[in-house]
């Protein structure tokens, strides 16, 4: 290898560093300009629908976010580089959030495509008001790495924000499933990991292990990972030796009842009756025994 390529490489590297340095300096300057207003606490924008949108930014939270060292304000807010900013087109908070999600596609186009075909993506386009967009699950300025144990262990609660709320679920003819999940074997392990080992990812299945992430389907869709034809394959991701009948162990996030998992329900009823009757009987015998002893003592029959 001659001298020339080495010189070329050095020069290129130097140029890149210089440019990067300049860009970083420019970004820092630009951010400082934005923050001169947006760091102020309690800053809000009132939308035409009378809802108020908080526009205060905590620079520390943004810096710690996954985008903190790679994006600047202008990456996601290119229209707002000038002051005064152009008028916000959205009439409601919801419209604003949905519109903002489009900027994510600039970089995350694969995920956006997947999401568009999912039940959430389709319902979002149809305009249903509770359907999550990017920021509903990931946040806006506080986006964290989704592959961290903390994010994984917190996923059921995140999904449970809507899927644990009977009021929201009723609008779409769905059952709230969060509570039932938490009481299932998987949910117990996940809850305990979250509480006692927040830095270890739960080994038990969480929502997206079975339902998928951005490609999540309606559970009645034959293509869903949890559809009758696919569920055993999905179970085998974690339980590779699962037999043919394994999927029937699944109680479908339903509270056992005479219709849903009757066997489980009747075992529950059996113990609900057995425990108090046995205990009542034992307490009665013990009290009788104690009473007889006390009675005998009072009559002077025992020392």
């Amino acid at each position, binding site marked *: 290898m001659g001298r020339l390529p080495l010189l070329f490489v050095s020069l290129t590297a130097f140029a890149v560093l210089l440019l990067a340095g300049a860009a970083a300096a420019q970004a820092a300057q630009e951010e400082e300009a934005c923050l001169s207003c947006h760091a102020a606490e309690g800053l809000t924008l009132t939308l035409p629908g009378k809802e108020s949108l908080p526009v205060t930014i905590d620079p520390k939270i943004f810096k710690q976010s996954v985008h903190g060292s790679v994006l600047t304000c202008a990456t996601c807010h290119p229209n707002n580089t000038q002051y005064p900013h152009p008028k916000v087109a959205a009439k409601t908070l919801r419209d604003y959030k949905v519109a903002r999600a489009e900027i994510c596609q600039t970089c995350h186009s694969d995920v956006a495509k997947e999401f568009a075909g999912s039940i959430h993506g389709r319902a979002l386009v149809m305009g249903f008001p509770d359907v999550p967009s990017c920021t509903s699950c990931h946040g806006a300025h506080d986006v964290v790495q989704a592959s961290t144990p903390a994010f994984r262990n917190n996923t059921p609660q995140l999904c449970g924000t809507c899927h644990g709320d009977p009021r929201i679920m009723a609008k779409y003819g769905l059952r709230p499933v969060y509570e039932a999940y938490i009481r299932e074997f998987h949910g117990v392990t996940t809850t305990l990991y979250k509480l006692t080992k927040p830095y270890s990812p739960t080994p038990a299945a969480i929502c997206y292990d079975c339902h998928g992430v951005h490609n999540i389907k309606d559970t009645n869709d034959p293509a869903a990972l949890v559809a009758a034809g696919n569920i055993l394959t999905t179970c085998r991701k974690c339980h590779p030796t699962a037999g043919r009948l394994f999927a029937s*162990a699944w109680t479908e996030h339903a509270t056992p009842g005479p219709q849903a*998992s009757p066997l489980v329900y009747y075992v529950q009823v059996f113990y*609900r009756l*057995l425990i108090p009757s*046995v205990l009542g009987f034992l307490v009665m015998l013990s009290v009788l025994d104690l*009473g*007889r002893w006390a009675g005998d003592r009072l009559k002077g029959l025992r020392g």
Partner: protein
Amino acid sequence: MNRRSRGPTVQRFTLAQRVEHFFLILSFNILAFTGLPQKYFYTGWAERIIRLMGGIETTRLIHRTFAVLLILQSLYHIGAVLAARRAGRERGAMGLGFTDFRNVLLDMAYLAGLRREKPSFGRYDYRQKFEYWAVVWGTAIMATTGLIMWFPELLARLVPGVLVPAARVAHGGEAILAIVAVIIWHFYNAHFRPDIFPMDPAMFTGRMEVERLRHEHAEEYVRLMETGDLVPEAVSPPEVEPARPATPSPSEDQNSSS
């Protein structure tokens, strides 16, 4: 009868049976201590206990280790009973019969003051028999349902998978039944009964005063007198059982319960 009297004694439990009982105390308590927080995982105390043990994986490891110990112990117990039966040492003194259910009613009447006489009991009274069989039933249920939850994939090769969530419910229900039954029934009968408070020493010394036997296990007392097992020389020296090849010795019955 004064419980502190030091009269002649008779052997109730062999050393092997007392060791068995000790291991039962050990496994039962550790299984309860590591199992309850798993059932009540959403409470603060459960979280603290699981944290103390180093997380749910370690808690499950301890739980399963002592579960295996309890299962091995149960298999040993079955083996010991069968061996005793074959050797003719086992008379079925722990067997439940119609008499036991009659004795419950008679004893209740006596305790309520409706009868003057206490029913006479055999080697084990109905309280001890019920407790023994509750341990047998409870261990069988807990071992079966526990193994189902431990190896759900294997189970679901043979039987419908719905047995897994059903087993989980049964395991929790049976656990509560066992724990509360022990706290009420066993603690009352073996610890808090005024006659024996603070504890019945028979399961630890292996011996019982003849006088107490005469009161609480009258039929056994009569039987021992008839077989000649209660001659004074035979009962006073502790631990040593004179060899009597011809007559079956009740003291070596394999059923453990105080």
